[in-house]
């Protein structure tokens, strides 16, 4: 069964191909069956492959499809490499992907681009699978760009809106900036190792480099550049909020669960390089910490339901980066998985709400949905609770707690990381429940036009269950000490060495975390349910700051000013190509001479005689007086 690993990415690819080629001629039922069914099969296959892989006890499985290209020293294969890390990822991708596909069948039912949507979505799943299964960095890059393309296509799915297209291009271009850094990183890796095979690089790296080798640091930074682009981290985070222009399932799958965590995958995959480059690793943490705060505060001020979730995604990935920064690899991957569950859930639920309210995105025009959409309400609440990391019952608590703890106690952790994470936790709780209260409590402001059906509710329920229970596979020391997940990853990803004598503080940290999360929820309750006026007062008293946060800390304005406008300006003023002026000038000079010379051909005989005389004088002068 493990031999069929290649089928996992191939199935979605075939399905995408069919839908692109003949999709327009298929009925939506057939298209849906092909689109969702292929992912379903892939998910099933993943489980079977995973079962066999786990039971085989082997570290890794390699499937070489064909030799891709080989020239000079460079040799790349089209090969899939399965190990415990990629196993987690393909599981999340196919399984969550499958749920989202099911959801999409109903969500997109009315859309005329139904089959196109599924084609793109399948293509995305295929690319994402290639990304995480790639055995060399070139193939990974293929997947990496492939998901970028699909993200572009899906953000701009409703293409007749100009702003959707803008958001799509913005997403593609900004991630490409990161990709450029990553590509250069690949060039450097190749120069050092003469291969781009991931496993070869990882085995050789410790032999070639000592810890802190400048080349290692440089390469780690360049790869980090790719990661921050894809994962919407500082300073390339600005595309993600705009990416919400895409349909909600897209936001759920691509911009929450899978693609945006590709950066996390990349860094985790290359963790040996980062271990050898402590400076770069520290910066991974710093970027994570700063991003999670910035995005968290921005999330506080948004009124578009999906933008809140987008900023929250940035913030949560910040947590993962923070975890990687302190070397808590498995914690990062764990948070990735749990985050995939609850954030997909939140997006899907939000999508259902938006669809129910006739494509209304503004939270302040929702309200009172608690009773009208109970299933949605409850599942959303569970997701929110998990996001806010409400203690003990939610999966989010366990994953985030682990990060907080290791940021504090880990050898590479420090107080600032911890404080940032802690502040982030409070902020998360506040904006999450602000969202819940505004959307579902209070009085209804918009009529419900569509009640979600089974295809929407079932995925929500499954995801809700996972958001609650998923955390119990990894429990902290103080609460049962279950380490299924980190054990599973341990051969691959090293665990964190703790600072000496710090274990005893674990319970205190947990207590503080729990208290702060609950406090945040209560704070939100006061502001948005008990005394809504208070929130308005706060808002008006800090209007400038509010607006600044609302605009995402003005990064967009900055980039526009520094990069986009100069580029467009330069391009515009030089539309007619200044270099061409040079050649036009040459022509003009020649024409000038022409005009001048033509005057000498006056047609008057004596003038011509004069010409001969002048010539004669010239010749005589030269012959008699010039001695060359």
């Amino acid at each position, binding site marked *: 069964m493990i031999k069929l690993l290649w089928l996992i990415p191939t199935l979605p690819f075939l399905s995408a191909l069919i839908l*692109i080629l003949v999709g*327009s001629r298929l009925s939506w039922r057939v298209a849906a069956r092909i689109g969702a069914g292929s992912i379903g099969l892939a998910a099933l296959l993943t489980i079977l492959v995973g079962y066999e892989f786990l039971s085989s006890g082997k570290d890794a499985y390699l499937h070489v499809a*064909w*030799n*891709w*290209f*080989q*020239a*000079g*020293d*460079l040799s790349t294969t*089209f090969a899939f490499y399965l190990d415990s890390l990629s196993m987690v990822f393909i599981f999340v991708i196919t399984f969550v992907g499958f749920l989202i596909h099911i959801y999409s069948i109903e969500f997109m039912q009315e859309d005329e681009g139904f089959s*196109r949507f599924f084609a793109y979505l399948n293509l995305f799943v295929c690319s994402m699978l290639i990304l995480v299964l790639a055995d060399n960095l*070139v193939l990974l*890059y*293929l997947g*990496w*760009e*492939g998901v970028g*393309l699909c993200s*572009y*296509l899906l953000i*701009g799915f409703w*293409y*007749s809106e*100009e702003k959707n*297209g803008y958001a*799509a*291009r913005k997403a*593609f*271009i900004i991630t*490409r*900036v990161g*990709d*450029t850094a990553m*590509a*250069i990183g*690949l*060039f*450097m890796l*190749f*120069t050092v190792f003469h291969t781009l095979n991931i496993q070869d690089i990882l085995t050789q790296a410790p032999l070639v480099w000592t810890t802190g080798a400048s080349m290692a640091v440089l390469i780690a930074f360049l790869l980090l550049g790719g990661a921050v682009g894809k994962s919407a981290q500082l300073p390339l985070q600005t595309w993600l909020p705009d990416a919400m222009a895409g349909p909600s399932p897209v936001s759920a799958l691509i911009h929450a669960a899978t693609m945006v965590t590709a950066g996390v995958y990349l860094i985790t995959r290359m963790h040996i390089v980062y271990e050898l480059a402590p400076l770069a690793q520290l910066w991974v943490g710093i970027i994570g910490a700063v991003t999670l705060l910035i995005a968290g505060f921005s999330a506080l001020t948004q009124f578009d339901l999906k933008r809140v979730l987008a900023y929250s995604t940035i913030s949560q990935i910040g947590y993962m980066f923070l975890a990687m920064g302190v070397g808590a690899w498995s914690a990062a991957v764990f948070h990735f998985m749990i985050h995939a569950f609850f954030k997909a859930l939140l997006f899907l639920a939000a999508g259902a709400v938006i669809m129910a309210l006739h494509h209304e995105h503004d939270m302040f025009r929702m309200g009172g949905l608690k009773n009208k959409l109970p299933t949605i309400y409850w599942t959303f609440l569970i997701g929110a609770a998990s996001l806010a990391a409400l203690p003990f019952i939610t999966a989010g608590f366990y994953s985030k707690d682990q990060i907080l703890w290791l940021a504090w106690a880990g050898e590479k952790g420090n107080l600032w990381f911890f404080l940032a994470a802690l502040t982030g936790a409070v902020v998360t709780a506040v904006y999450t429940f602000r969202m819940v209260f505004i959307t579902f409590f209070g009085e209804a402001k918009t009529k419900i036009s569509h009640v979600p059906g089974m295809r929407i509710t079932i995925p929500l329920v499954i995801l809700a269950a996972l958001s609650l229970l998923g955390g119990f596979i990894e429990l902290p020391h103080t609460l049962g000490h279950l380490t299924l997940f980190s054990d599973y990853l341990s051969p691959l990803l090293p665990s964190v060495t703790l600072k000496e004598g710090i274990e005893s503080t674990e319970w205190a940290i947990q207590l503080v975390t729990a208290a702060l999360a609950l406090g945040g929820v209560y704070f939100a309750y006061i502001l948005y349910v008990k005394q809504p006026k208070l929130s308005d007062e706060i808002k008006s008293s800090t209007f400038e700051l509010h607006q600044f946060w609302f605009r995402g800390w003005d990064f967009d304005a900055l980039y526009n000013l520094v990069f986009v406008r100069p*580029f*467009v300006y*330069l*391009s*515009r003023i*030089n*539309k007619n*190509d200044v*270099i*061409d002026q*040079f*050649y036009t000038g040459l022509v003009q000079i020649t024409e000038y001479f022409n005009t001048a010379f033509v005057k000498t051909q006056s047609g008057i005989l004596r003038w011509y005689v004069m010409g001969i005389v002048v010539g004669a004088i010239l010749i005589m002068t030269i012959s008699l007086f010039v001695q060359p």
Partner: protein
Amino acid sequence: MMLASLIAILMVGGIAAGFLARVNQTACRWLSLITVTIAFGIILFIWIDEGLSMTLTDSWLRDLYIPWIPSFGIAFHLAMDGLSLLMLALTFFLGILAVLVSWKEIQYRVGFFHFNLLWVLAGITGVFLTMDLFLFYFFWEVMLIPMYFLIGIWGHENKQYAAYKFFIFTQASGLLMLLAILALYFIHGEQTGIYSFDYFALLNTTLTPDTARWLMCGFLIAFVVKLPVVPLHTWLPDAHTEAPTAGSVLLAGLLLKTGAYGLIRFVLPIFPEAAASIAPIAMLLGVVGIIYGAVQAYSQTDFKRLVAYTSVSHMGFIMLGVFAFNELAMQGVVMQMITHGISTGALFIIAGVLYERIHTRDILRMGGMWKKVPFMGTVAMVFVMASLGLPGLGNFIAEFMTLIGAWQANKLLTIIATAGLVFATAYSLRIMQKVFLGKNIEGHGITDLSLREKFILVPLCIAIIWLGLFPQQVINTAKPTVANGSHAKNHAAIHNRTRTDNVQYTSAFDTERRKP
């Protein structure tokens, strides 16, 4: 003889088609199509026959030598290696498509059009095959005139201006190359007593560094104008924009490649040291081209002009790769020649197809066409993605190999070139946005691709994807040529070393003799 027959078939076919059109225009089109297809068939036959068993040592597949002007040592010398094979395959592939795209577009003077089309192809075939420098120049010029007519007669509004510009730029640079060829001829003749224009003879000319640099500049200028390299590119946007679709396809797909081919075939092997000495400047020019072309492309509103500037940008990679002096980059260059021919050719075809429907090339007047023409949109998407270097499509392989090879030679320039990919994204997506996405401003009620158009574009799609996923066959075919070419630098090093060794040896000998 097979090689000569390729050229002969095209020339005879051209003349026949020209006359046939007086009787029946459709027959003329069919005849042209069949002629090019036969040529394509011959190339495929050779490829299958030889290519599969190709090895490094036996890199010349076919050779034909007929004395032509013996008093000047000029011969009709054709030979084919892997590189020429690939280029010819591309030539005839695009040639077939060029005939097909003109099926409906060209209704005016059909016979003369096809005559010119086939003669351009014949000239290009000659350029890719000839191993005699005089003959090379001969074909180099021969392909210009029919091309000039293609632009000048069947072009768009400003065709005369564009045609002049094209002709004068290429002719000026070509003449400088002729000077260099002649100088090389005499230097070689004086050295060896054998006056010959033969490529393999001239390869062994010993040149002083100064002379070599000057002569190389002569060759270089012809090739970089064709390529084109900024700041010698300004003929290209005009020519590409004004040419009829088939003309644009041939220009972008093939004529630009003759420049790249010349660099690989002539500049590097004949002037290894000189080429190495200007490599940084050449690479810089390449990078300038990449960035400049991309910035220019972004602001254009004429679809074809935009694509033309992307060519400038993409050809910068060729300059960068050729002068990186390693096999990897060179393979990238060869790949780029092929994939750019396909992807840009396809974009021009799409521009042409749109022009036939809505009679404008102004992208500001397009928009929202996906709804009406999803098939065309999908195809366009593939090639737009190819032009921005999306992995999985041929251009990525080319650009990746070029860049990774160039990295070994010059890091800073490679970084800038890589950043150029961001710009490529910007202009490529702009095409998609303005043409197919967004709102349907003018309410064009247009029809999707016809069967003939699908027949043109789908093979291109398949080719570009195939090259992206299975490029190895191409790489293997080019390998013998490229491996030798990129060893030029090593050759040079060995050369210099032996020379200095000799000097040391004699001087040592002298001192020893003086000692007693």
